[in-house]
């Protein structure tokens, strides 16, 4: 599959994420996960290269996310959806499920990637919450 050229802001965001040890995801303007880094793969139990790009449905089925009572969080309430649809940062506490079935409580912060052509994607950072 030959995908269209990514905007330079997404190319550089992907490079930044690949270099960071903060778990992070990159989604394009259609909400497709187009990259997550190795730090995120520790929480998800799988590397990006093994799964490739994932739409919101696939992503939801594979990893949750769930709220603290174990209910699946609707797509439109997720930080990344809010960042993309409304062009503003969003933050939430969620629970995600790794491919091995391990649940991790995380803080997720999504930041839209604004360009001169509008919102072209979002970066989503995860932070594991240690049980106190």
């Amino acid at each position, binding site marked *: 599959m*030959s*995908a*269209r*050229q*990514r*905007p*330079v*802001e997404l*190319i*550089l965001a*992907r*490079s*930044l*994420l*690949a*270099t960071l040890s903060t778990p992070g995801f990159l989604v394009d303007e259609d909400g497709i996960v187009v*990259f997550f*880094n190795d730090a995120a793969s520790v929480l998800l139990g799988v590397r*990006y*290269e*093994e*799964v*490739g*790009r994932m739409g919101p449905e696939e992503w939801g089925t594979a990893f949750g996310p769930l709220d603290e009572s174990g209910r699946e969080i609707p797509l439109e309430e997720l930080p990344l959806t809010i960042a993309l649809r409304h062009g503003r940062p969003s933050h939430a506490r969620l629970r995600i499920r790794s491919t091995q079935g391990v649940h991790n409580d995380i803080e997720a912060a999504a930041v839209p990637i*604004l*360009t*001169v*052509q509008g919102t072209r994607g979002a970066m989503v950072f995860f932070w594991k919450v240690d049980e106190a």
Partner: protein
Amino acid sequence: MRVKIWGARGSVPSPGPETVRYGGNTSCVQVTLSDGTLLALDAGTGIRSMGLGLAEPARPVHILLTHLHMDHIQGLMFFGPAFDPTSEIVIWGPEAPDASLRDRIARYISAPLSPVEVRELPCHVSFNEAPHSEWKIGPATIRAASVTHRGPTLGYRITEGDVSLCYIPDHEPALGADLRDDGPEWISGFELARGATVLMHDGQYTSDEYSRRVGWGHSRLADALAFGRRVGAKRLVVFHHDPLHSDDFLDALQGDAVERWADLGGEPTSLEFAVERRELSVDRLPRSAASASATPEPRPARGGGAARGGGGSAPSRESSRSP
């Protein structure tokens, strides 16, 4: 389409006995379309000589600025037609979130850096942020795309008939991508440069120099060659020479580059280093040369792994001695 290089030096003008052959003027390339329409790609100090050579200053001159670093706009104040009340200049450049193109250029053409203000320029001048989709200038179709450099920066592709010139003088595509293995969608400038008849591209540094300048927005020669082959450019003109690189040093670098280009499958005659005042005609290549320069597109790994850092791992064959 006829092309004349008026300045191929990067960063800062570097006149002197050691740069007489490749030239010391900064970025400016004149493009003359089939109907005589005139374009200037960037307005570095080379544009001063271009202005002196123009016979009919009254026709519009379109200046396509890749970005507003000084080495790409310094000549604006010394471009003859700007001071001719009968001439018309149309300036195109990158959009930025903070101010209009006109206001950003006015930071240079205003006190204390300049004795005149933009509003005082005698010519008819207009400023246009480059559109996000293709547009026409005379018989040519122009495309602009943001590329990896410091600050808002464009590359341009000028297509007339079935030939195209792609101009990306300041570009670090290896920052954030593996030029060999990443999918083309993740390589800055790929779509813009793909299959260009002539690609003029940043090749400022040796590998040794680049190792200390990763993230500065420029390419090492090895990456310029890899990019040129990857996009399947029919001809590559290495541009934006480092001010420290003397004529003799560039000669040696070019010799190594031709060998490496051939190793990558390129025709030795389809690679050259930009030389000030050199004219090129951008024509369709003979069939044999065109097929020899086609690059098979390598299959990216599933998902396409992101590059780690920008250092890359290409062999460093070119000289690493200090220029």
